[in-house]
């Protein structure tokens, strides 16, 4: 063992410089050319930064599209999900409460039209997206709260839908923050 100790220590130090030092420094330098300059991509409204494109936000007012339930309360100082099992009784009660809350704020919406993602917590607690169906189901409420036509709101949602990659791969999504920024314009 002793024969290998010094080579091990010296090689470790050299690799620390290469992998711990130079590698991330190089990447951070290249990232200056990327969107957001490697600091994360922000969203601005009226010249003010209102959030990060990829980090979801909490919306509780009726005039905004709501994001999904979050166990991190949309504070990206941390992140995480509920880790509740599918059959956990306490968890299922929470889901039922979310359904009731949603129904109360969205009169006229049938229960079978509520997508499950609106009553289940995301993995990161920061999910910035909804599926198109989960946005559509909120149109009536948003339109009423803003006093504009449902047609108009639907147009804004449709314009905000991000299609699957090449139209073929992965789910279609809507970015909730960007959608709400557009609504406020």
């Amino acid at each position, binding site marked *: 063992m002793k024969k290998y100790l010094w080579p091990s220590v*010296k090689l470790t130090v050299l690799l620390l410089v290469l*992998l711990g030092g130079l590698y*991330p420094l190089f990447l951070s330098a290249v990232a200056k050319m990327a969107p957001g300059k490697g*600091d994360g991509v922000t969203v601005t409204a009226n010249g003010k930064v*209102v959030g990060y494109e990829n980090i979801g936000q909490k919306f509780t007012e009726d005039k905004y599209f709501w994001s999904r339930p979050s166990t991190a309360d949309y504070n990206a100082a941390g992140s995480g999900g509920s*880790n509740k099992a599918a059959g956990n009784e306490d968890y299922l009660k929470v*889901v039922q409460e979310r359904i009731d809350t949603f129904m109360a704020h969205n009169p006229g919406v049938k229960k079978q039209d509520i997508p*499950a993602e609106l009553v289940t917590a995301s993995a990161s607690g920061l999910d910035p*997206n909804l599926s198109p169906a989960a946005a559509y189901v909120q149109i009536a409420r948003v339109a009423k709260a803003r006093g504009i036509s449902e047609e108009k709101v639907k147009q804004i949602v449709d314009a905000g839908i991000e299609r699957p990659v090449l139209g073929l791969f992965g789910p279609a999504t809507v970015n909730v923050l960007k959608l709400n920024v557009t609504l406020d314009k």
Partner: protein
Amino acid sequence: MTTEILGVIATYGLTLLLAWPLARYIVKVFKGERTWSDFMAPLERLFYKISGINPKEEMTWKEHLKALLTINMVWFVYAFFALMFQDKLPLNPDGNPGQSADLAFNTAISFVVNCNLQHYSGESGVTYFTQLFVLAFLQFVSAATGIAALIVVFKAFKEKTTTKLGNFWEFFLKSITRILLPFSVVIALILIFNGTPASYAGKDTVVTMQGDTVNVSRGPAAGFVAIKHLGTNGGGWFGANSAHPLENPTYITWATEMVAQVVIPIALVFALGMFINRRKFAYVIFGIMTIGMLCLLIPSMQAEINGNPAIAQMGVQQATGAMEGKEVRFGPAATGYWSTVTTIISTGSVCGWHDSTMPLTGMMQLLGMMLNCFYGGCGVGILNYYIYIIIAVFISGLMVGRTPEFMGHKLEAREVKIAALITLLSPFLILAGTALSSYVLAHHPDANWAVKPSAWLNNPGYHGFSEMLYEYTSANANNGSGFEGLGDGNIFWNVSTGFVLILGRFLPIVGPLAIAGLMASKKYVPASAGTLRTDSLTFGVMTFAVIVILTALAYFPALALGPIAEYFSLYR
């Protein structure tokens, strides 16, 4: 849902397309032939010179192991102290505290052994210094350790009779300079241009549209996320791992990370065939591994797409499947695929929480880790599969009444004993650990510890048992994912899984290396009509049967108490 399934198929197809040329490249690198990456050679020579290493010095299998274990020990000592005193070191913009001794013990081991169990959260439990100079560093070198060990075994297969099996330092360093580092740069750049942060800026504070003040954790994450996948490590920069929208911002990055984590394990299988010039042998292994993966994958994806029956009963719509603990930009098909791949190849990164997946999916995740050989982690996957091959050769030999042979060498009592011990090790560590924690939980629920055992579990009943079973399975398989509801950031779990991690990593490297080394030093017996052909489909099926039977015998009772019981109580 169609586009989601298409996305999974396309991602797997892309992996295979890339694995083939990668395999040819890997073989060239380790045979010392000319490649495009020869511009790294001066750097390697400099490293050898300063470290006092002669890369031409051939080592026996014992010398390989000594070098491997020595450098791993150095890393552990360094990592342990760096994590404990990280608050006194530079690059800590968020002012995070040092780790407690038991947490540093667990974290250091966990990253040294390529597991990345992470009993802390990336945003608050480590600093930029320890993320980059300890954790990401270990992600590189632990993967390189696995690849180097595998190349030693390749050498042993290739030679007729020899005790000289190449130089460990050369295999190790080339794994980094020629494979892991250059490809990590490529992966990281893709992530950076899709929104993953890479600067050294600390937390940002934002006032949201509704007027809440929130923080946003950031940091030089892109390079970390690249090597965490390429090296089948799996430890996340952020607490939510690859479900975090900065760590994995889009479907493109999802596919990139997905390809990155499984491309080297698959390429190494192809490389085996090319290196020892027995391509058919490698194809059969690849075929069996792929069938094994599909057996785990299809039920998982189906269960996730169909959704949670308990939520269906409430009357809401589950067109996007079971969404608890999942992200909309990935959906259930992609998350199901990821959960299978990450458990069979010992990555352990997640893009959705395993704790909240359906019972059947949870069982497939557990099985993936218990088997731990379908593609498998960087290097070690094939080593695990090799043990099963030895057992299969031995049993086949008994069935036909001949002394078993493998690669032209007689397989005798000593090698079979080593293989049998390694096979028994995993069930022993997993089941003994789970039994111990269950005992403590049942008989000492109010023990006066930092976290009382009664507060460990996040879910009652069968699923709670699965949480404990999962933790030890993940530790033994050096996987690193978890049923993360488990309250594992305390001394009982830090210490007990710490020991499982060490044994579950190094013995399954020592065993195959010893067998291969011992066999290679024996007299070469040319193949004859009576030789068992290990490159035939029959033998492939035989190996598969051995894997299935051994796994079923070892784990069925535990699985019955956990996910199987949960399945029958949920789908009434």
